[in-house]
């Protein structure tokens, strides 16, 4: 067994130094000190090896041993990942709680996944088959919702020489033996290990063509994200980043959700655990946790593990993508990850670039977001990894380095706005600062699956909101009374759009997740109301007369009054609008 050993020379916070050339490799995982704390090699020099430690280093003394493991920091991939909560380096927190109590002690050595549990396994290969990397060898129902597909590791191929019958196996039992092309035999179990900083290989990438439907109107209709896409949610504190991420995690049509709580609050993770355990996935009828994995590295857990947690989550996501699933990653928040980089960079006394962040911030961010995508996998299945990263800009100022660099690498930007949040307009995604580059890529899908008029409607809604904002400039100076009636109508309709369409109530049973069909019909109704009112205004009817009718508020209340499964109710609204039109005409004839 490969076992290089070094001794500690110096300790500075989470960074330790070893003297001399230890023969360690870059990014290799090491065990530090008597308590065997987990660490990673981050710099090598002729006379100095630098290691970041994923656990609290208090109590370490010079002279203690550091043992190299020979492998890069890796995650264990096998059934048991879903419906589970891990720390930043894939240690299951429930197990840690069982062995160590309520607080996380140091140097806990627990297996990532349950090695004793027997899984009902169905083998999908037979003797004589030639297996490539990625080939599915067995299927295991991991949760009620998800069939786990055990695969040949990407770098292995050969001919099957023996297969076990279907039955119950642990993740360490040998399922298939193959003869490699070199003549050696290799035993395959359900388990693979994969280094977290290396992307899992695929055949090729598809361009975005299918939206990730989230049930959130401002996202699906106004600024959609594609499956395999990337999006950033920047916003100051209290603007609802976490809430937006929770909503997407709950209601999006991804098969699997990886929720990374990176440097965020402990109570938030507890809330996700509780809520997702109770909530039922509308598609499968199973608890949401059945399709969810949580990576929790709360803000008071060691900073180096926070840096790793993002990659751990990403690698788990890629593994499920390889099985042919659509995976969505919620990373909350990437700023904490960037700050962990900054903190470690400062400890290493590297030359800082903007605001103390290291110069490699941009390249790390781009490498992270580029691991998203809709892929054709090695085994011929198609799967996707979508990344939705929250950004917590310092002081809510979007010009800071993390937001700016993130903007360069994501194609969807949902900017949260403080003033919207202050007036409790949620989701506080501001329609003027946000954008989505996927709009044109996804237009064919919308035309085919929702309505040919969808994109046109969306653009008209957007145009109304834009004219509202320029009219508001005038209103701010001289008040709204002096505007001509057609402009007053634009303001009124924009109000209907803001309150009745963009604002969405996460705590209302019908409004928390809205089908594409209802989203389209809502737009249709609002625009029909606009057309009819505009005709009335053009005939010289003043806005005050139109406003006296309660039709505007009635349309605003559609979001609460029409359940998702009753689209036929929209016909009534069209009739109401017609009736309103007639009434105004008659009254003022």
């Amino acid at each position: 067994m490969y076992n290089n050993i070094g001794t500690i020379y110096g300790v500075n916070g989470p960074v330790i130094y070893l003297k001399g050339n230890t023969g360690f490799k870059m990014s290799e995982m090491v065990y530090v000190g008597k308590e065997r704390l987990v660490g990673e090699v981050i710099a090598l020099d002729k006379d100095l090896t630098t290691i970041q430690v994923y656990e609290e280093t208090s109590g370490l003394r010079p002279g203690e041993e550091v043992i190299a493991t020979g492998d890069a920091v890796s995650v264990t991939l096998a059934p048991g990942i879903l419906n589970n909560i891990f720390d930043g380096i894939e240690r299951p927190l429930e197990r840690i709680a069982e062995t160590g109590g309520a607080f996380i002690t140091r140097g806990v050595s627990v297996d990532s996944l349950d090695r004793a549990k027997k899984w009902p396994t169905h083998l999908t290969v037979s003797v004589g088959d030639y297996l490539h990397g990625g080939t599915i060898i067995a299927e295991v129902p991991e949760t009620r919702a998800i069939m786990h597909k055990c695969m040949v590791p990407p770098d292995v191929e050969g001919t099957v020489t023996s297969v076990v019958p279907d039955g119950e196996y642990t993740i360490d039992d040998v399922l298939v033996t193959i003869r490699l092309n070199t003549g050696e035999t290799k035993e395959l179990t359900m388990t693979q290990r994969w280094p977290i900083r290396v992307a899992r290989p695929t055949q090729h990438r598809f361009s975005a063509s299918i939206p990730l439907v989230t049930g959130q109107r401002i996202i699906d209709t106004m600024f959609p994200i594609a499956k395999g896409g990337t999006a950033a949610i920047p916003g100051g504190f209290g603007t609802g980043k976490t809430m937006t991420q929770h909503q997407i995690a709950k209601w999006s049509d991804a098969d699997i959700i990886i929720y990374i709580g990176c440097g965020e609050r402990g109570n938030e993770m507890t809330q996700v655990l509780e809520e997702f355990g109770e909530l039922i996935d509308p598609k499968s009828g199973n608890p949401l946790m059945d399709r969810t994995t949580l990576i929790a590295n709360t803000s008071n857990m060691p900073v180096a593990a926070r840096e790793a947690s993002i990659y751990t989550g990403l690698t788990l996501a890629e593994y499920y993508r390889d099985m042919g699933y659509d995976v969505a990653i919620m990373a909350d928040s990437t700023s904490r990850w960037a700050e962990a980089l900054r903190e470690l960079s400062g400890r290493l006394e590297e030359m800082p670039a903007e605001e103390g962040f290291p110069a490699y911030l941009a390249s790390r961010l781009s490498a992270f977001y580029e691991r998203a995508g809709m892929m054709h996998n090695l085994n011929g299945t198609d799967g996707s990894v979508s990344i939705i990263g929250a950004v917590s800009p310092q002081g809510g100022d979007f010009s800071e380095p993390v937001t700016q660099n993130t903007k360069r690498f994501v194609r969807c930007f949902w900017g949260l706005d403080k003033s919207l949040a202050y007036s409790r307009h949620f989701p506080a995604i501001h329609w003027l600062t946000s954008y989505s580059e996927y709009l044109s890529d996804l237009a064919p899908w919308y035309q085919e699956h929702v309505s040919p008029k969808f994109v046109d409607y969306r653009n008209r809604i957007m145009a109304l909101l834009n004219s509202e904002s320029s009219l508001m400039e005038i209103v701010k100076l001289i008040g709204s009374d002096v505007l001509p009636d057609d402009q007053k109508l634009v303001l009124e309709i924009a109000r209907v759009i803001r309150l009745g369409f963009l604002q969405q109530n996460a705590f209302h049973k019908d409004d928390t997740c809205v089908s594409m069909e209802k989203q389209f019909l809502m737009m249709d109704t609002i625009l029909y109301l606009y057309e009819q009112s505009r005709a009335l205004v053009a005939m010289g009817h003043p806005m005050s007369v139109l406003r006296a009718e309660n039709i505007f508020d009635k349309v605003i209340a559609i979001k609460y009054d029409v359940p998702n499964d009753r689209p036929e109710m929209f016909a009534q609204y069209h009739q109401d609008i017609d009736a309103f039109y007639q009434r105004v005409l008659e009254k003022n004839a």
Partner: protein
Amino acid sequence: MSIEYLGLSSINGPLIAIEGVQDAFFDEIVEFVVSGNERKLGRIVEIYEDKAVIQVFEGTDNMSLLNTHTRLTGHPMEISLSPDILGRTFNGIGQPIDDMGPITSNLKRDVNGLPLNPVTREYPRNYIRTGISAIDGLTTLIRGQKLPIFSGNGLPHDQLAAQIVKQASLGDDSDEEFAIVFAAMGVKHDVADFFRRTFEESGVADHVAMFLNLANDPVVERLITPKVALTAAEYLAFEQNMHILVILTDMTSFAEAMREVSSSKGEIPSRKGFPGYLYSELATIYERAGIVQGKNGSVTQLPILTMPNDDITHPIPDLTGYITEGQIVLDRGLHSQSIYPPINILPSLSRLMKDGIGEGYTRDDHQDLANQLFSAYAKVGEARNLASVIGEDELSPIDKKYLEFGKEFEERYIGQRLFENRSIETTLNLGWELLGKLPREELDRVNTKILDKYYVPAPVEE
């Protein structure tokens, strides 16, 4: 084990370096004897082979390279704990300073604490009634929450914290035990005195453990004060099953002490000269609030921080806001109109509120009412801006109604007397009374059913 080292190799501000030490470890506490009589404590902050960099809590005054004896204690920073710490006063590193003798207990705890495992946390749901409308109604405080008060110099944050302590502790007839841990970091003497007096007047003095690091006490000591206080709080909450309210004041001094020490260590600064690990350090303090499954106690934090130049985007309030579960923001404008407490509700927020209010906790209309008040008050701001440009007379009738609503809201809902303890019913009913000034169509955040039940338009004045 107790080898004494004579002499130091360098002194730089609060930091000293010593060479030739054997078997020292990172974060170990060391004891100094200066000139044979003065005792000081220090902590190893960096260590390279036999050279240790030590931060001296009491400051390096009087120390020379020759007159200092150093002894390794073999343990990290620890404090003695027993239920007797209630009613006592300690200095910033947990040594009694009230002439009542040392705490005798075999129980010692590492002040650094350990992160609480998210799976063993219990999600906080029980609200604490503070008797202050702006808090109870709009930014409800929940047991186990960390809710800081963002204030500025000269604003009445101390009075507000004291009022919360008084009304939250005594309003409840429950038999559960309640205690306060008070940590002062770099605050003025009169502030510490004010709190001590308040605790005595409201009869809770024997339920308070005070940890005082005053403005003229050593800066480095400040870095450890909140950790000592929270270690005591965790002990009382999770081992003695008490409900603990921790008041930390002033977090700004704590962060500035960190900057001072960091710069003397020669570290690379990030924002405004603060070290890159400011976020992590603040988080290890704030995250020590919460409830543990299966334990009866809880730790609720009420940190106070003064925003330098009233700037909420300054790194200290900014990073705090990202860690804590909301914030209560005090406003100079309201204060100068003599409105107490001068809480600016728009940027204020309680993240845990939504799960601790409503039917079964407070009343079914609470959430909708709060949303509506927030939204209406935001419109008041818009109307005021407009009025400042075109004059109040030119405003539309509805904007005028908002101005009127805003004025009453600030005076009657936000404003209350220093000893006024409002019940939750009073607070909620007052909210509806004020909303009655607005026409029903304007109330777009409230469910129709709730409107029917609670909305009463105000009688039109002639």
